């Protein structure tokens, strides 16, 4: 392994790293928004919207991100909407992530026992008070592990962005290998940068998980 090569590639990798993180987290923010909204729609059984959400979730959970990206990137211009590759990446990730987040939040909401609802109602709580004071805080705690798993999964999924010519980590590595054949160095750096990106999320996730669960369940 040639460390001079590594040092010389470093600026390119850092640039790609920043781009990956930027699009990754914009996509994740989007997915959280979509997930919360859709989970509420399902939980409150809002007519018509519920059916649409169900179709959306199944459609996006059961197709690969790559295919979804192709649809957004090559499909939208055909109907007259052209957006940048970066926006495509973020939207694609947001839509895929949204379907996973929906399921995570919904299962959290459903996991709060009915008896909690009954005891709150018996105290005279109104529907809104019941939801915001009793159901929601417990549902959030219950969905933390699944949400953290989704975060990690989604950040890893950014590796297919290269297919729509986004200069992310994967793209940069493949590009450099193609140009200079320093396969070992390039792949080594790729692994390191992914770990640097994901390890903090993983560790932070575990801490949050422990903190939130401890209150309700102990160790």
């Amino acid at each position, binding site marked *: 392994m040639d460390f001079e090569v590594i040092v010389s590639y470093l600026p390119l990798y850092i640039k790609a790293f920043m781009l990956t993180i930027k699009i990754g987290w914009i996509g994740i923010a989007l997915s959280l928004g979509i997930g919360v909204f859709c989970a509420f729609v399902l939980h409150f059984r809002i007519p018509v919207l519920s059916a649409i959400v169900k179709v959306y979730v199944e459609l996006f959970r059961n197709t690969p991100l790559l295919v979804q990206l192709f649809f957004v990137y090559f499909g939208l211009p055909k109907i007259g909407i052209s957006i940048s590759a970066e926006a495509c990446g973020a939207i694609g990730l947001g839509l895929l992530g949204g379907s996973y987040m929906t399921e995570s939040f919904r299962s959290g909401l459903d996991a709060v*026992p009915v*008896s*909690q609802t*009954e*005891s*709150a*109602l*018996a*105290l*005279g*709580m*109104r529907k809104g*008070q019941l939801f915001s*004071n*009793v159901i929601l*805080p*417990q549902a959030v*705690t219950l969905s933390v592990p699944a949400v953290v798993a989704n975060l990690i999964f989604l950040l890893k999924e950014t590796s297919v962005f290269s297919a729509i010519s986004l200069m992310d980590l994967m793209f940069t590595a493949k590009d450099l290998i193609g140009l200079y054949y320093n396969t070992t160095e390039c792949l080594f750096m790729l692994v390191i940068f992914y770990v640097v990106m994901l390890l903090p999320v993983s560790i932070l996730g575990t801490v949050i998980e422990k903190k939130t669960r401890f*209150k*309700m*369940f*102990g160790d």
Partner: protein
Amino acid sequence: MEEILRVENLSKKYEDVDVLDGISLSVKKGEVVVIVGPSGCGKSTFLRCLNGLEDIRDGSVFLGDEKINPNKKNLSKTREKIGMVFQSYDLFPHKTILQNVTLAPIKVKKRKKAEVEEEALKLLDRVGLISKKDNYPRQLSGGQKQRVAIVRALIMHPEVLLFDEVTAALDPEMVREVLDVVLSLAKEGRTMLIVTHEMSFARAVADRVIFLDGGKIVEEGKPTDFFDNPKTDRLKKFLKTFSYEE
């Protein structure tokens, strides 16, 4: 004494089974009514109808002059006046003991936090749990949780208290600590409807005991008559299951 709760011809069906079959009952202010009966006789369903947790199809329930209607908007308002304690405590696991007790008065009755907390601490002290105020429910024993659940109901100043088998999930030595609290409430003159399997407790606490079987009131009376001179064969047989004498 004035009447506080009236049940008229209350009936309820699940599929084809009559869970409640035309129950009528009048409860006076300050009266303690204990409901006993075999499993599945409709005791819990009956209590749950009284605060609208169950749909009321036939018959009606009145608290004072107000009709309890599960489909009506003012149901929450009525429920504020009916305290209920459940078999499985159902404390809020994400809130401390003090927060469990103060949540409803602050949110529902819009009372001042400081004033509610002061009252909560007094009540927790009364049931011997003031030292647990900052603990979470998971850190308490079943008996302690149930005493907190009673305090949580009391702080709403209910006109009627419903107890749904509040000791059924407890270890024997914890049963006593909970029942002592209920007994002290009875002595205060609170109106209570209690579903229980603890016959000696029923005898001690009740002004009137009701035997429910097959969704009907089979027999009712003062505890002495009820337990010492049961009239119906069905009740005699039921009471016999609680003794091991020949």
